[in-house]
């Protein structure tokens, strides 16, 4: 029974709780059972809220028992990446500078989970301020890949992806600035969706690259992601960049998920895929073959400006970050140096002491890119190329429903393998970064394993605000394969 319970999908669990077949408290206990057993190894969470979770679960069970209406996530245990503000616990961004920071408000996405009666289990680890591709940049702890504890879970939402893979939760929120949802999901063999920029409110998401950041779901399967999308999507008056419902209405992403897409036209860019590892390329090609067998048409396309995506990203994201992170100065909240000799030292020492290497590197890069005399050559030029990248995607979507490619050129790499070479680490995001620059939605779904039994992810991209189509396309493949049902060896004995 316990084995079955912990492996249930979020939608299935939600339905069983609603029907009274399973109690929310049972699911919460199952999750904390798994946490007790595997969390010391996996290290997915920065904080957990057992007492609060049990309280909430009992409240939902009570509601159900007394016949009251419950929300769309009634009694389901979920986790959130620790860069979303919560009034409970700390909001650390895995940074020493915010280690003890308690936010006075809930981020909109978290509030929506709470309003939908979700049970929040804990807040997950990440690369400090979401800057990284392996969660090794966390200033607070190490998370490992449940499929191979010697390897990284990917990043920056590594904690959330590892938590879902290791069955330490039923669903989680991540955030994606350059691949931070999709890449760890690919490494951990779970589903991750980055919504269109503006689909989900950023209010309360601690900003890294404001024009790129987007919150999205991390789950065991596509339907679960669709359900979380139903809950967190929508316009928010507190976020000027969230899109109004007249422009792009929120639709029921779950309702028609099994409908498939008739006459599906898939774009592939062979010149791009050539850079991926053999095993990754093969798995992605096989996945596309599966679509073909189901009547999809594959069209080869070129996206010439994608070659510049990483360069453009590391100018724009770091420029925004250099300004976004200026507020962590030791003056108002967060870490403050002891006995500064003047107010300038409050800034310089507090920041020097509490920011990690990668954060410092990106702040310096961004500061440089925005500096007088360099602005035109770097930031302005990057904005122009960003437009060209957008156009590349737009052209492809004129004749295709979606684009398919790998999520990452490799499977999960070894802990420490790339930490000495930041450029190698940056290149790991080659397939995901352009998507954020274009603002379009993308999903990562499990599509096989390499020889080391490490998961491989298929990335599917759709035009802006076509998340409904995106999950339907993803579901077409998922319904015919069982990669997503595989459980990492660490937890098979649960």
């Amino acid at each position, binding site marked *: 029974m316990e084995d079955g319970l912990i492996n249930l999908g979020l939608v299935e669990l939600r339905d069983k709780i609603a029907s009274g077949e399973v109690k929310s408290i049972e699911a919460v206990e199952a999750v904390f059972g798994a946490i007790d057993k595997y969390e010391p190894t996996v290290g997915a969470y920065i904080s957990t809220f057992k007492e609060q979770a049990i309280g909430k679960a009992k409240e939902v069970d009570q509601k159900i028992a007394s016949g009251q209406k419950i929300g769309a996530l009634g009694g389901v245990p979920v986790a959130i990446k620790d*860069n*979303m*503000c919560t009034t409970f616990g700390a*909001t650390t*961004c895995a940074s020493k500078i*915010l280690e003890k*920071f308690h*936010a*006075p*408000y809930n*981020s909109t996405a978290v509030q929506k989970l709470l309003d939908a009666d979700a049970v929040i289990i804990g807040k997950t680890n990440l690369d400090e301020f979401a800057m990284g591709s392996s969660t090794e940049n966390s200033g607070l702890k190490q998370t490992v890949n449940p499929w191979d504890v010697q390897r990284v879970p990917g990043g920056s939402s590594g904690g959330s992806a590892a938590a879902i893979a290791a069955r330490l939760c039923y669903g989680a929120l991540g955030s994606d600035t350059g691949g931070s949802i999709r890449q760890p999901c690919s490494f951990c063999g779970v589903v991750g969706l980055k919504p269109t920029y503006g689909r989900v409110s*950023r*209010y*309360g*998401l*601690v*900003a890294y*690259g*404001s*024009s790129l950041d987007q919150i999205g779901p991390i789950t065991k399967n596509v339907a679960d992601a669709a359900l979380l999308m139903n809950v967190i999507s929508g316009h928010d*008056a*507190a*976020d*000027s*960049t969230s899109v109004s419902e007249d422009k792009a209405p929120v639709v029921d992403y779950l309702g028609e998920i099994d409908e498939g897409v008739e006459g599906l036209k898939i774009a592939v860019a062979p010149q791009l895929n050539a850079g991926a590892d053999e095993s990754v390329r093969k798995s992605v090609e096989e996945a596309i073959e599966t679509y073909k067998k189901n009547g999809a048409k594959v069209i080869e396309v070129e996206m010439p400006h994608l070659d510049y995506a990483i360069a453009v990203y590391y100018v724009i994201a770091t*420029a*925004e970050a*250099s*300004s976004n992170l*200026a*507020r*962590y*100065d030791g*003056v*108002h*909240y967060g870490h403050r140096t002891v006995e500064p000799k003047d*107010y300038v030292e*409050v*800034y310089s020492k507090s920041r020097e002491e509490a920011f990690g290497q990668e954060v410092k590197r990106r702040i310096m890069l961004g*500061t440089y890119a*925005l*500096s*007088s005399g360099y*602005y035109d050559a770097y*930031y302005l030029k990057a904005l122009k190329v960003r437009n060209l990248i957008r156009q590349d995607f737009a052209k492809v979507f004129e004749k295709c429903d979606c684009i398919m490619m790998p999520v990452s050129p490799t499977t999960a790499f070894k802990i420490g393998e790339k930490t000495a070479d930041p450029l190698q680490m940056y290149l790991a995001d080659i397939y995901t970064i352009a998507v954020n620059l274009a603002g379009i939605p993308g999903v990562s779904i499990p599509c096989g394993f390499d020889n080391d039994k490490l998961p491989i992810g298929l990335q599917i991209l759709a035009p802006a605000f076509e998340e409904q189509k995106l999950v339907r396309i993803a579901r077409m493949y998922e319904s015919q394969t069982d990669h997503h049902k595989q459980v990492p060896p660490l937890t098979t004995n649960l």
Partner: protein
Amino acid sequence: MSEFKHKLVVGLEIHVHLCTKSKIFCGCELEYGATANTRVCPVCLGMPGSLPVMNKRAYEFAVMVGLALNCEIARFTKWDRKNYYYPDLPKNYQISQYDMPLAEHGYIEIPLEGGKSKKIRITRAHLEEDAGKNVHSTGNYSQVDLNRAGTPLLEIVTEPDLNSPAEVKALAVELQRIVRYLGVSEADMQKGHMRFEPNVNLVIDIGGKEVKTPIVEIKNLNSFRAVERSVEYEIHRQLDEFGETGKTMGMGNKSTRGWDDVNHVTVLQREKEEAHDYRYFPDPDLSPVELSDEWLGDIKSRLCELPLQMQMRFVNEYGLSEYDAGVLTGDRTTAEFFDNAVKAGGDSKRLCNLITQAGLKMANEKGCSLAELGFSAEDTAELAKMVEAGDVNTTAANTILEKMTELGEGPRSIAEKFNLIQKNDAGELEGIVDEILAANPDVVEQIRSGDKKSGKARSFLMGQVMQKTKGQANPKIVSEILAKKLG
């Protein structure tokens, strides 16, 4: 003072707090003088994850000022981040407008002596958020009050078109009048609602060759007087300095001086203009602002006649003196009240006297506006008409106006109630005059004999008539009767 032929050149940088209900990027209330850090929220505190949302009203207020300053209004603008570290700036960047200000290329017309005016060009006006305040205590620390952080702040920059301390002051006064007319700022300099920073230097003529003294920016000016005096002081100081050092304007030698309001001198604050790199870039958290025809039309419909225009109209159409027109257009309620009373048929000069002598005095005493005194422009016009018709005299009119405030009744009923209606019946008055003449034969004799004190004697008789009639006699008729009787 060194003797050089010189010309003063001044440009102004002006900051105006807009009096919206809430802050520019969040819903916090704007309140001057509230307990420190009680008008704050995650947004204006710069908390992690918080995001700004533009206050439309603030934008509209700013556009109104731009229009009033005859500027070209941008139909598409954006918000930029100005990055710098300071404890009163919680995000360590200020949301501002850099290369696309909402208004540009305008002018402000300022009144000068003798009914003349001068156009001072406006370079640009843009909107930004104000910072908080550092509070320096005696200990080895400072505190920060963020109540002010996020107050909508309009920055206006003029061209260096001002050439005398009086012109600088006139511009400051005129701008205050304009923003108050528009109702977009309380513009109280003492409270820091309005800050003026003159950039001052001199063009000196040395044997036909022009040289310029280094530019000085003056700060800490919290009154119009200080604005004028500080510029006046700078003229002398810069002439002296030039006489001593011969230093001329050059790259990087602009300095900042603070006005010392006690000793009436400017004091050096910063020797050289620091080469700040603010690393401006478009704020990704805010959408660009597109000002549609409809929206702009709506904003335009909220404008009003501007003070200087009104002042000139009062002079030209209503025949008022420069001075009176200036007093009446000091604030919009008074000006409009007066204008409405004239339009309701009152004589402009009589209304001017009523309002400036009695009305504004009362308003001042009660600490309210003219319109809040409880009588209407129409009633005031009626009262002026009564004076004009000789129903009441001017002294009584002022009394009636006071009673109108107290009792909230019309002028005629008050005049009747308090027996303030003037006696215009020549027959009745003649009888009274006869009685007075009979009672004062020596005075009459004094007049008739052509004594040099006869003027005083006539006034005495007039006073006696007034006393007898409890001030209700029409002095014009009485003096006619006196003239007839006494020759």
